[in-house]
């Protein structure tokens, strides 16, 4: 058999940090013993890497997530090399096979990873932390030492290591193991701004100068400008205003405000800004992440409860993402393949899957937003069932009453970080619960979802597609819109979470199927079209679990509502989908132009906005052509005060005069990618730069815009299931995440990823109705839920997490804390 091509599988694998020397054993996740129970964590054969780089086998044994010293066992995944033969078969590649073909064969690896979190915030390429294990063929561990121009001399950050596993008779496959780092925090040495309560970065991990750009970083320019003009009664703003005015009056500035900010404020207020200044300032503001200020900051935190002041502590974590390459020289030919790796936090609820995972988005990029015509209906129904199962798995860990925006034991609901509160802040409207107050409790709502699941198991077709939120309607804040499903959670665009189109269409399709047809042959026969055969293979590759890998290394265990995400920020992958331009990951602002833009005959669009994509005109049934636009923004609407039930109003504000919100790229571009991947579409841009405000395309007046041809890049590399390297370089898939990720565990509350970063645990029925339980971040498990105000000392604080996250974080199995 001739080897035509190589693949590294899985094409994207997730490592998870932990300081235990022994990685997590391999396990799979299987259907529960009872239909509504927790999925079963089933140990499988674990591959142990011996000192000489060979493998030995550990028979399946009970999974422990922490070792006896309380250290978390890292997820250190293997990557296998597979060969595509001339017959088109894909088979595991063994050294014996290679030696049979060519006794002088060489196998080499190269790994490039990066952490670009700081660069994403500062915009300075010298903040990029990169590590390379250059081509190697030995079986020694190759450390991934992250280096950065802005580190102090000789400092480095440890991203873990990679190792080419030595093939043996028992384990002849060609494979590499990625062992991520320990989950440590790095930062500045002897920071004079450090307050007593703050975690002390040990000297060995002091990589930054305390006066360096990251240690002095802040993102509150807008606030300072506002505060300078402030004459109200708010003591905090008053203090800032006085400081700003003091600066303007030539008095000695307070240390609370950065010199740089004050200088800008001064110039601004004195009207000395030149146009280039303004452009520079706009470009700097454009670097803001969504949500903003996703980094550890000096107290008080979080910034949105403290006037937006966010002075960086200069922390950075040891997670990364990047590319693994294999190069095999065989009979004079060189075969290569690539895969992606990333490292993230542990999967703390390993027996539960979130309602929308990275796998859902990757599948949508493979199959498109619709149900493929040749998909067997039992597969469609199974997908619909799986979505409903994941919905109750998600609800399990969500304090639904609190997430609904209800007071808790008399405490004002506005004090808690919830989606209704977030919506109120975003739209500058009064906060309202989503569902009728008192009607939503975790156990009751979970049971309701389980009843739905049970009915589907009995053969009923889904009857609820119309309850699902359309990805275009995430800005509908009327009760009609907010009560769509999934409810109470945040999507990648900051609006209410929507499923992928592919998930939604699966439920719609399942709803149109006859009741209980299990066992019937697929409609139209089982033969797959060649185009779909490629898609199927890609799908198989994406979901491939290499031998020895824990299930938590798969994309099914990674959240996809990237606000910003936990393992990956998939929003980043869409920024370069159109040749020539670079978009911001969270909205339609063009933040950069690629080198080749002039060759593509594109003007410099930096600062402009991509408002819509025009696909080739469609012809309706009457033979008339009609334009086909895909918009990148949505109108924010809310209930009209004059009649909240029957009328709606635009949600405009001083900051958002058009009442618009961005739409997440993954859903917005799903059709473009599926129908026009590799082809040309028309991009509709603002004719001028619009840095700071959202803007929309008006289909009825399609004249005042710039129409430009754009070529759509493929999402996956040719024939493989590897996310195109052109779309994301090493470090870019994690650059939008919190720095450090521990910050995210503190700040991203119940309404993000309840079943990945849980909210409500140890839940039991309450004697007065509803439920009792603990906040996952509660220090003492009392059964009395402590709602998150960010101030309550009963909850684990930022610094607790920075100092001691491995001990404090409790894994959840069966909905209960487990020590190990």
């Amino acid at each position: 058999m001739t080897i035509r091509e190589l693949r590294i599988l899985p094409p994207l694998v997730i490592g998870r940090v932990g300081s235990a020397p022994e990685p997590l054993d391999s396990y799979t996740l299987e259907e529960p013993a009872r239909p509504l129970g927790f999925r079963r964590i089933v140990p499988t054969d674990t591959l142990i890497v011996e000192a000489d780089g060979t493998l030995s086998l550990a028979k399946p044994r009970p999974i422990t997530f922490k070792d006896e010293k309380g250290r978390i066992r890292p997820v250190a995944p293997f990557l296998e090399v597979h060969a595509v033969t001339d017959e088109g078969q894909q088979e595991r590649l063994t050294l014996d096979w290679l030696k049979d073909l060519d006794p002088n064969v060489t196998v080499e690896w190269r790994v490039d990873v990066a952490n670009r979190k700081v660069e994403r915030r500062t915009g300075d390429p010298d903040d990029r932390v990169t590590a390379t294990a250059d081509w190697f063929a030995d079986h020694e561990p190759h450390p991934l030492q992250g280096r950065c121009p802005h580190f102090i001399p000789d400092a480095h950050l440890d991203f873990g290591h990679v190792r080419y596993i030595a093939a043996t008779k028992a384990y002849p496959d060609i494979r590499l193991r990625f062992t991520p780092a320990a989950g440590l925090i790095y930062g500045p040495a002897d920071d004079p701004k450090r307050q007593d309560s703050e975690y002390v970065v040990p000297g060995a991990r002091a990589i930054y100068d305390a006066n360096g750009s990251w240690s002095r970083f802040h993102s509150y320019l807008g606030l300072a400008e506002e505060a300078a003009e402030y004459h109200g009664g708010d003591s905090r703003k008053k203090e800032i205003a006085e400081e700003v005015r003091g600066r303007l009056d030539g008095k000695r500035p307070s240390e609370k405000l950065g010199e740089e900010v004050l200088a800008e404020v001064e110039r601004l207020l004195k009207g000395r800004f030149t146009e280039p200044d303004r452009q520079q300032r706009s470009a700097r503001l454009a670097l803001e992440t969504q949500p903003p200020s996703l980094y550890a900051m000096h107290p008080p935190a979080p910034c949105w409860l403290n006037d937006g002041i966010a002075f960086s502590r200069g922390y950075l974590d040891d997670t990364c993402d990047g590319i693994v390459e294999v190069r095999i020289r065989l009979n004079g030919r060189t075969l290569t393949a690539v895969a992606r790796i990333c490292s993230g936090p542990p999967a703390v609820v390993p027996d539960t899957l979130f309602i929308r995972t990275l796998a859902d988005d990757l599948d949508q990029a493979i199959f498109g937003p619709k149900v493929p015509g040749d998909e067997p209906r039992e597969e469609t129904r199974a997908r619909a069932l799986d979505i409903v199962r994941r919905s109750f798995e998600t609800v399990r860990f969500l304090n639904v009453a609190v997430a609904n925006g209800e007071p808790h034991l008399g405490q004002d609901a506005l004090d808690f970080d919830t989606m209704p509160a977030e919506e109120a802040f975003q739209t500058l409207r009064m906060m309202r619960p989503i569902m009728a107050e008192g009607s939503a409790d975790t156990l009751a709502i979970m049971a309701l979802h389980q009843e739905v699941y049970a009915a589907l198991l009995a053969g009923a077709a889904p009857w609820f597609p119309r309850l699902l939120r359309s990805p275009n309607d995430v800005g509908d804040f009327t009760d009609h819109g907010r009560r769509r499903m999934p409810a109470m959670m945040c999507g990648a665009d900051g609006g209410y979470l929507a499923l992928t189109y592919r998930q939604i269409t699966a439920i719609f399709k399942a709803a149109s199927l006859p009741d209980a047809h299990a066992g019937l042959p697929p409609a139209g026969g089982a033969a797959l079209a060649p185009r779909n055969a490629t898609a199927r293979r890609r799908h198989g590759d994406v979901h491939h679990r290499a031998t020895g890998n824990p299930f938590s290394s798969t994309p099914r265990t990674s959240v996809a509502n990237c606000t910003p995400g936990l393992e990956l920020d998939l929003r980043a992958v869409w920024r370069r989908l159109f040749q020539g331009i670079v978009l911001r990951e969270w909205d339609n602002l063009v933040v950069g132009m690629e080198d080749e833009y002039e060759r593509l005959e594109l003007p410099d669009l930096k600062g402009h906005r991509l408002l819509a994509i025009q696909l080739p005109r469609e012809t309706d049934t009457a033979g008339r052509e009609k334009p086909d636009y895909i918009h990148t923004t949505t109108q924010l609407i809310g209930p009209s005060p004059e009649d909240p039930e029957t009328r709606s109003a635009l949600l405009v504000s001083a900051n958002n005069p058009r009442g618009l919100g961005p739409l997440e790229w993954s859903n917005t571009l799903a059709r473009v990618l599926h129908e026009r991947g590799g082809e040309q579409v028309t991009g509709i841009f603002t004719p001028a730069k619009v840095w700071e405000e959202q803007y929309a395309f008006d289909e009825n007046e399609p004249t005042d815009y710039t129409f430009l041809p754009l070529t759509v890049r493929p999402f996956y590399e040719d024939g493989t299931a590897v996310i195109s390297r052109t779309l994301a370089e090493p470090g870019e898939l994690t650059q939008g995440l919190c720095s450090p990720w521990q910050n995210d565990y503190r700040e991203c509350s119940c309404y993000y990823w309840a079943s990945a970063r849980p909210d409500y645990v140890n839940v039991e029925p309450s004697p007065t109705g509803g439920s009792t339980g603990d906040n996952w971040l509660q220090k003492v498990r009392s059964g009395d839920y402590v709602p998150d105000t960010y101030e309550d000392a009963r909850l684990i604080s930022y610094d607790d997490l920075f100092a001691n996250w491995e001990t404090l974080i409790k894994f959840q199995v069966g909905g209960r804390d487990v020590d190990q």
Partner: protein
Amino acid sequence: MIYPKLAAPSAVGDDLLLLPRGMSWRDHLISLLHAAAELEHGFMVQYLYAAYSIDTDVADPALARKVLKWRGDILTVAKEEMGHLLTVQNALCLLSGPVSVGRPNFPWDSPFTPYPFHLRPLSLESLSLFVHGERPDDRTLGALGKRLSGRNALESIGIHGPQIEKCIRPLLSEQPSRVRVGAIYDRIIETLEHPSRIPDSAFCAERYSSQASWDEWGRRYRPAPAEPGQRTPDKGESKSEIIIRRMSSRTDAIEALRHVAGQGEAAHIQSRMREEKSHFERFVEIYSQFADTPAPPVHFVPTNPNTDSSRHRDAGTITSRVSRIWADLFNCRYRILLTYLTHTFRLVRGGAGSTLRGDVLQKIFGEMYNLKAIAGVLARSPMHDDPDRRERAGAPFAMPYDLTLPLDDIDCWRMHRDILGRSQRLCTVLLAAGDALRPEGRVFLEALSELDEQADRWIRSILDGLGDTRGRR
């Protein structure tokens, strides 16, 4: 008309002569509301049964779409009847009367019913009765004709009118001239309108917080709000609106009941509802399509299925051993639903038991899904253990012997637990049925058993909270 139009009240005392013996006007009004609740409940169940009888497993995609739409439309009407039932309960709450979710068993005929009520599979016969039952009076029908000029429904009634007449005539027992369903609402509204009959003091606004609300029950079944700048909602995706009105005064009650009556017959349509089809129109449309469909796919389910004992067996009696247990399970879950429903009106919104109210409410929705699932299983299960017979069983919707709640709250919860226990035992028996159980039936029962264990833990926790110490495990 069963009721002659009431004369306006003249002198105090004369008016009482218009009443059934021994009744006050309030008594009379409450009895009328109870009758209206029975009617709404009866309609709802008949529609559910007809919808569940539709066989959606058809090969022809166009036909599959058509039958799915029939089912969806009929279920929508059933949901709207549920809204009517709840609104009537709210009126009873307002009058401090006992809520009533009971009804006679099928078959059921009375002077209040527009036709003898039976559980019938979808057929031209059952559709004729549905059209007849929801038919507005002639004046309204004329007005509807003008409004709907050119629309299918009106054409259909024109084309199919004689057929419908012919179909229903033998089914109306010996009363060819039956009441319209709206007649009872006319009478209720007439009674409510006169303070001399129902004084202001009869209305108990404090009960407002016990009443069912759209927010709790509506589940988004109404049109989305109008676009910004528009005044009238676009009917858009929502073809229906579940009306659940709360009321604190006479004016509210009259308005709410008018609205309810209008939804069936389109007699008192509100401005925002102009685009919504009445039940009458929807049934006419389905009738028309059904009549034009050769061999419409309907499960071979009986009329009035039941699990009556051997002494009272009739053509609707399910005799298959396993199917009978499924039918018993259906009836048990139906009882759970109705008992929870009755209980919600005792649990005050916003009060000490408000979380319990929410919990119970979600349980009711859960039971609706259970009934849907079991009805589907029954429609695919044999009615008799005779392989040569092709009849399928159907959902019996048998009323429990009683729906009265015990006096004390603690006893209510004990009762819930007792009924749940019966369901759990039925599940156990069914799960022991071996190969007689289809795979989807087995997995559903396993899931239901888990849900019942959860519910049992929930009830035990509540009983603990109430200080219950009896019968503890």
